[in-house]
């Protein structure tokens, strides 16, 4: 087992485009770290550089106390689970799991002991004699994990391991992976584009965009203190709402009216003109349900569509944004693999709310949870540095309930 340390890692392809640009991440021994981002952000490339399937253009990659830049994959002693599992179709499940051991030339009884150990852990005992072609998706996934855990690898690497499973199985396997990692206590790097997996599995999460590391933090910190517009938009579902905003004193003008924000936040953004305000859907509520109408943080808006889900409901409220904000939001949508759609507010309401489609509703907004972003750079101007420092200090492996 070992720590993995990446220092100023750069990957350039033939055309000179940096797929990974100056990324530095230290993965502590036994830590579970997630690389997340939309497609093309360089997360898989980074993982493949760790395992040695991709050359490192510049920078230093360390596993334990060895610099591994020039080592072949087989000399790095890492185990990897591939997106398509990469099971060998001509070998039985048993032989698939035994494959790395056979290559290492281990004795038959030793191989047998380790394979049976792994298969017991992963509940594969009854499938050992079958070929991968006859297995279900979840079983294949477990065989791939078996091939990883059977060796005493320094670290586990996962490349979108759950993306080929259906939603229900994905949830089960996610828990399974988390449980296994906790039990083995092995350093793990896990690539995904799914922010739910990122939030639930990782001790820390590295968010990447177009090869550049945007933020490396605990899931809770990513959620509550996003560094910039991109991280804010990427983490959370439904995503954070972005609204054009101008601040005067402690008053923020939104498309629907003015609300008051805490003094500390307001001070940081004085005189900056047009900004982008970010508010998560759950930080809105039906003013009637909250029971504090008209205290300066409510506004009235016409609700276009309501989706009632039982425990909560989502209300959609379209609005117009000025062109400079619109351009930035369209760009963000593209960065997030989405399509530029109409600008609308998504509001999560309590299940008890009686707001109907077409209603002119009074909505309350939890303004101390509002972030304000620079529309040019996307930077979060209202980051609460103190909270961030606290989070860092109390970093613990179990803080993943995000």
């Amino acid at each position, binding site marked *: 087992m070992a720590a993995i340390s990446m220092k*100023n890692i750069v990957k350039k392809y033939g055309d000179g485009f940096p797929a990974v640009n100056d990324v530095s991440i230290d993965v502590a021994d036994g830590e579970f770290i997630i690389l997340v981002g939309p497609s093309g952000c360089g997360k898989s490339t980074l993982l493949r550089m760790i395992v040695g399937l991709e*050359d490192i253009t*510049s920078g*230093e990659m360390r596993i334990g106390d060895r610099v591994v*830049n020039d080592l072949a994959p087989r000399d790095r002693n890492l185990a990897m689970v591939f997106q398509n599992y990469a099971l060998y179709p001509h070998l039985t499940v048993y032989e698939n799991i035994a494959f790395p051991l056979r290559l290492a030339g281990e004795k038959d009884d030793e191989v047998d002991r380790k394979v049976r150990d792994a298969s017991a852990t992963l509940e594969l005992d009854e499938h050992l004699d079958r070929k991968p072609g006859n297995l279900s998706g979840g079983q294949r996934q477990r065989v791939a994990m078996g091939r990883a855990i059977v060796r005493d690898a320094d670290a586990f690497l996962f490349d979108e391991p759950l993306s080929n499973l259906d939603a229900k199985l994905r949830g089960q396997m996610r828990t399974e992976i988390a449980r296994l990692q906790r039990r083995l206590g092995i350093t793990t790097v896990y690539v995904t584009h799914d922010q739910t997996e990122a939030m639930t599995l990782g001790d820390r999460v590295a968010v990447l965009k177009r090869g550049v*590391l945007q*933020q490396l933090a605990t899931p809770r910190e990513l959620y509550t203190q996003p*560094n910039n517009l991109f991280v804010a938009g990427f983490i959370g579902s439904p995503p954070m709402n972005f609204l054009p905003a101008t601040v005067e004193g402690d008053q923020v003008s939104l498309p629907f009216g003015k609300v008051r924000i805490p003094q500390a936040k307001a001070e940081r953004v004085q005189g900056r003109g047009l900004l982008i305000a970010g508010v998560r859907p759950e930080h809105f509520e039906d003013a009637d349900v909250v029971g504090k109408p008209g205290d300066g943080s409510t506004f009235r808006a016409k609700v276009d569509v309501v989706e009632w889900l039982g425990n909560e409901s989502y209300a959609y409220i379209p609005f117009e944004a000025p062109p400079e904000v619109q351009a930035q939001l369209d760009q963000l949508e593209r960065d997030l693999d989405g399509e530029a759609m109409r600008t609308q507010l998504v509001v999560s309401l309590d299940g008890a709310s009686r707001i109907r489609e077409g209603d002119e509703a009074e909505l309350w907004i939890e303004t101390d949870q509002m972030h304000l972003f620079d529309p040019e750079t996307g930077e979060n101007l209202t980051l609460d540095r103190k909270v961030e420092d606290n989070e860092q200090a109390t970093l613990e492996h179990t803080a993943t309930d995000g």
Partner: protein
Amino acid sequence: MTTTVATPATQAGRQPQEVSDRTRAENRLGMKLVAPALVVMLVVTAFPILRALWLSFYNYSLTAPEDRQFIGIDNYVTALTDSLFWRDIGMTVIYMLVTVAFELVIGFAFAMIMHRVIFARGIIRTSILIPYGIITVVSGFAWQFAFTYQNGFINGWLPFVSADFNWFGDTVPAVIAIMVSEIWKTTPFMSLLLLAGLAQVSEDMIEAAKVDGATWWQRLFKVILPNMRAAIMVAVLFRALDAYRIFDNIFVMTAGAQGTESISFLTYRQSIEQFQLGMGSALAVLLFLSVLLVAFIIVKLFRVDLAQARGES
């Protein structure tokens, strides 16, 4: 977010080289692996064709090798001004056009049948592969014997042909007989290529067309065929060039008599039967150039995707 501290000079200098090391190693390995195949392919084609080019400028007969003398482009002039050359070129083009046209239609019908059929797939596959695998010379013999009036069955089976009609007594019937053998032997190949193309037309699309109210013919011409275009074009390209080189059937069935000779057969006759290596070489070069021309015309005319023909993905 990371802030870049200048990378140590040693690293910056060392690493770009290592990257190219791996690419260079891959480059070298790739070349090493293809080299033997490439050499074998070129040894028997590029070198002889260059030698043919050189020989074609000589008057060189195997019966009198000592009298070899340089005569410039005389061989070419002789060939190109001879009506026999042009008649054979014309004949070859007719062989190509007619056989490919028939093969395309019959092959497509076969492909449709094989695509739809669920039962007895193995038997159909086996039957269709037998003409594909059989020696062309055997096919030539089988059809020649079938067409001869002394012992063939064709005259007896065809109602509008008299029992003693000599198929090999005149150009048109002899050419028909040769074409029948050629078409019989090569249609399976065509139909298998078309079957593969047919398998790639999505069933959903055809059903959507059905729902949209397209008739069987409309589905065929507006949905199925346009979506198989690439497969059809590659099949036509391969078969047309193959048909342009027709030789075996002519050799066996008529030996070039009755004006059934193709350009390949003419070349063969000049060099091997008459030992005129100089003239034969000139014809070989002309044959080679005419194949290039035919390939070029097909590729341009039908806009065949050469990358696909090359097997690149």
